[in-house]
């Protein structure tokens, strides 16, 4: 039996009004705010998912990156939903939306918290949005860490794959704080046939990709 290797089959980087998919710049915008940039990219890629516009910016960013990462993969035909894991991380948790929520409750005589803002005051909701979109329900969690820790992501995803808890995994960094945003998502799969140019999954390669264009 041939030995299976873990590979980074795809990656998507969104930062500085630019989207890179597997090394190729696929979209550049000149919108003045993250929300406008995400919406412009959504339209450019003709994504059809009305709920996108109701999401907070963290979810829009994660959703957009995952959408491009999995584009054309028919993931539901390849993997059962419970065999796809998701491990994401960031530094600010849901701080961007937390601030919006705080604004709506800061004045006693204007105390009107918005339910649709409040539901996004948890960072792991971005995982939920991706799972709902793609009907995924495998192992998942969201880490809060000072900066992208490639070693930790590698070790956790490797453990899931080694122990056959999942057969593939979406992992990476999704961060937004005011006008500063960054998403770097990777799709990790197993393969017994290593094609030329495909990166082996390890912490060093995760870091190399993360630093591309930074």
């Amino acid at each position, binding site marked *: 039996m041939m030995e299976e290797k873990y590979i980074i089959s795809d990656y998507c980087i969104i930062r500085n009004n630019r989207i890179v998919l597997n090394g190729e710049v696929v979209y550049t915008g000149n919108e003045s705010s993250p929300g406008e940039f995400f*919406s412009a990219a959504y339209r450019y890629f003709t994504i059809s998912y*009305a709920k996108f*516009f*109701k999401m907070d910016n963290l979810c829009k960013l994660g959703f957009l990156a995952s959408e491009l990462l999995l584009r054309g993969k028919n993931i539901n035909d390849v993997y059962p939903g419970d065999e796809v894991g998701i491990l994401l991380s960031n530094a600010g948790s849901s701080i961007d939306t937390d601030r919006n929520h705080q604004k709506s409750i800061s004045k006693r005589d204007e105390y*009107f*918290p*918005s*339910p*649709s803002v409040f*539901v996004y005051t948890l960072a792991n909701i971005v995982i939920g949005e991706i799972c709902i979109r793609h009907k995924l329900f495998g192992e998942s969690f969201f880490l809060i860490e000072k900066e992208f820790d490639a070693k930790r992501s590698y070790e956790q995803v490797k453990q899931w794959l080694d122990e056959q808890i999942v057969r593939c995994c979406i992992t990476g960094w999704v961060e937004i704080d005011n006008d500063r945003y960054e998403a770097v998502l990777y799709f990790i799969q197993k393969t017994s046939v290593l094609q030329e140019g495909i990166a082996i999954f390890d912490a060093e390669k995760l870091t190399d990709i993360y630093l591309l264009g930074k």
Partner: protein
Amino acid sequence: MEALIAKLKNEIIEVLNLTEMTPESIDENEPLFVEGLGLDSIDALELIVLLERNYGLKLATAEEGKTVLKSVRSMAEFIRKNNKG
């Protein structure tokens, strides 16, 4: 009444982030939930907040909510009937 319906449509588009819609594309007689606009439970809460914040109106019971939030027209009728402003 028609002016209130038009105003309400704009407010609904704003609070529910229905950025792809225009007031003209919303039929005031269509159901707001499941069919029609296809709103969900969080949207219902948002509409309840809208009624309170913009019109000073509170829904007394869940049953009343089902009637009032049936369509844009039913919301407008509830506002016209109860708004003291």
